[in-house]
């Protein structure tokens, strides 16, 4: 029993070791990481280490800096998490030992990052001074730096970075309106492929789980930039243009995110920018299939892992509601209020449960997905992103 004492330790921070009852030298209890994850506590610069099978917080890891807009990726072995903070901090966490393994301040201001398919490279997209920095995943030693100078010669913020097969990363240049692919297939010096005139002010980008379609949302235009990465000759084209149909864009109080977007066999569901709508794009033709009216301006459109439903949260001030879209009919079929200030949603890998952060209630709500009922609550300080280690084995962002 004592051996498992840590399991009930709640928020006790520190190493998750337990001593043997027989008085022998301490040795770690065998553990696995497939059910672990992180909850970002953005105001306090900490993360909660959680277990999504036991639906419990195991410990709090502090000292991660400014975590507004923080996100994380996971090593292929699911032992390490790499947390990208707004202050440019890149922090490597050891989930087994519940501690910071290594931390570097890699720039002045960053927005997110990605891990290469072989797990060896961490790429960080930066706002200040812009560009992308590449780190060795073990030691966090800088391996390369890609200044994002657009065709106009000016430094650009980089957004929407995701990994592609073959040690490649794809990302968008916010100020320059370009999309670049950095190919590390031959070592530490990247081969760059640039797509100029991708579209004005791309605010985020993502790739489908087959690594075929990269889309960037455009703030400065009515549509998305798209690259078919399976095409023999890559080119960047606008898709779903004029999705507003001349209607005025609403003020955007929180930029939509493309991470976790709803992908099913036939279509992609993603947030409109500046409208109370989720857009369904036909993946065969890349044409707009339907504008789905929603409660507010969508922020995340997160697909249930089987693709049957997409769960959506909304921007300030309508951010206390979550809506569920039924993919076969492309209609909203359910709305509920999990708590004030819904920031993020994360399904368990098989989609039986979902974790939802209610920032302004200082809690994360765990729901049974089929019954759409709350089954647990995890106290957390101003929780935002929820990131499960099982992301390590998911293609696409």
């Amino acid at each position: 029993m004592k051996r498992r004492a840590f399991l009930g330790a709640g928020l006790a921070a520190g190493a998750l070791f337990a001593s043997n009852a027989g008085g022998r030298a301490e040795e770690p209890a065998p553990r696995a990481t497939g059910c672990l994850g992180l909850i970002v506590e953005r105001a306090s610069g900490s993360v909660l280490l959680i277990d999504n099978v036991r639906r419990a917080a195991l410990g709090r890891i502090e000292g991660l800096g400014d975590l507004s807009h923080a996100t994380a990726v996971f090593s292929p072995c699911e032992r390490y998490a790499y947390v990208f903070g707004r202050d440019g901090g890149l922090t490597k966490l050891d989930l087994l030992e519940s501690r910071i393994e290594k931390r570097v301040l890699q720039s002045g201001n960053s927005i997110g990052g990605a891990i290469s398919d072989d797990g060896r490279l961490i790429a960080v997209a930066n706002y200040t001074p812009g560009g992308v920095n590449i780190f060795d995943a073990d030691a966090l030693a800088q391996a390369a730096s890609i200044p994002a100078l657009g065709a106009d010669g000016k430094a650009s913020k980089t957004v929407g970075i995701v990994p592609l097969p073959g040690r490649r990363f794809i990302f968008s240049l916010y100020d320059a309106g370009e999309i670049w692919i950095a190919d590390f297939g031959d070592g530490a010096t990247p081969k760059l492929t640039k797509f100029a005139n991708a579209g004005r002010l791309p605010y985020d980008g993502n790739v489908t789980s087959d690594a075929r379609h990269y889309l960037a949302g455009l703030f400065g235009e009515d549509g998305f930039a798209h690259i078919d990465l399976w095409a023999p000759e890559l080119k960047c084209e606008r898709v779903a243009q004029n999705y507003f149909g001349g209607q005025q864009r609403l003020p955007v109080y929180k930029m939509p995110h493309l991470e976790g977007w709803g992908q099913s066999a036939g279509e992609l569901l993603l947030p409109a920018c500046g409208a109370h709508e989720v857009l369904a794009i036909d993946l065969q033709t890349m044409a707009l299939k339907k504008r789905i009216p929603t409660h507010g301006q969508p922020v995340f459109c997160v697909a249930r892992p089987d693709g049957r439903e997409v769960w959506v949260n909304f921007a300030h001030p309508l951010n206390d509601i979550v809506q569920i879209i039924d993919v076969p009919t492309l209609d909203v079929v359910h709305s509920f209020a999990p708590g004030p200030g819904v920031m993020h949603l994360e399904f368990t890998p098989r989609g039986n449960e979902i974790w939802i952060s209610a920032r302004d209630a200082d809690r994360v709500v765990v729901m049974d997905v089929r019954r759409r009922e709350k089954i647990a609550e995890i106290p957390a300080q101003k929780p935002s992103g929820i990131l499960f280690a099982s992301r390590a084995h998911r293609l696409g962002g």
Partner: protein
Amino acid sequence: MAKGAALLTMIALLPPACAAAQQPRDKLVSLVRQDCGSCHGLTLKGGLGPALLPPNLAGKSVEGLAAIILDGVPGTPMPPWRGELSPEDARWIAQELKEGFPQ
């Protein structure tokens, strides 16, 4: 005189109109940190939007900043907050940003 007092009482009892009444300061602080922070960073060091720390705003007037808060910046993601914030709210936020925004 009595009539004036009654009128004042009535005004005091009116529910806050959406763009007129000044909001409690802790609410404004939370709004700036959490919601403006989506783009400008929780610490206001900047993000998609520019940094809003005192050195960044040194050359800018309170009135000018308040106008940006209320009306936004066309062609950029900065939205107008008029409707949610009164001119008094916006001026208070602008003043506090210039001096170093409360935690």
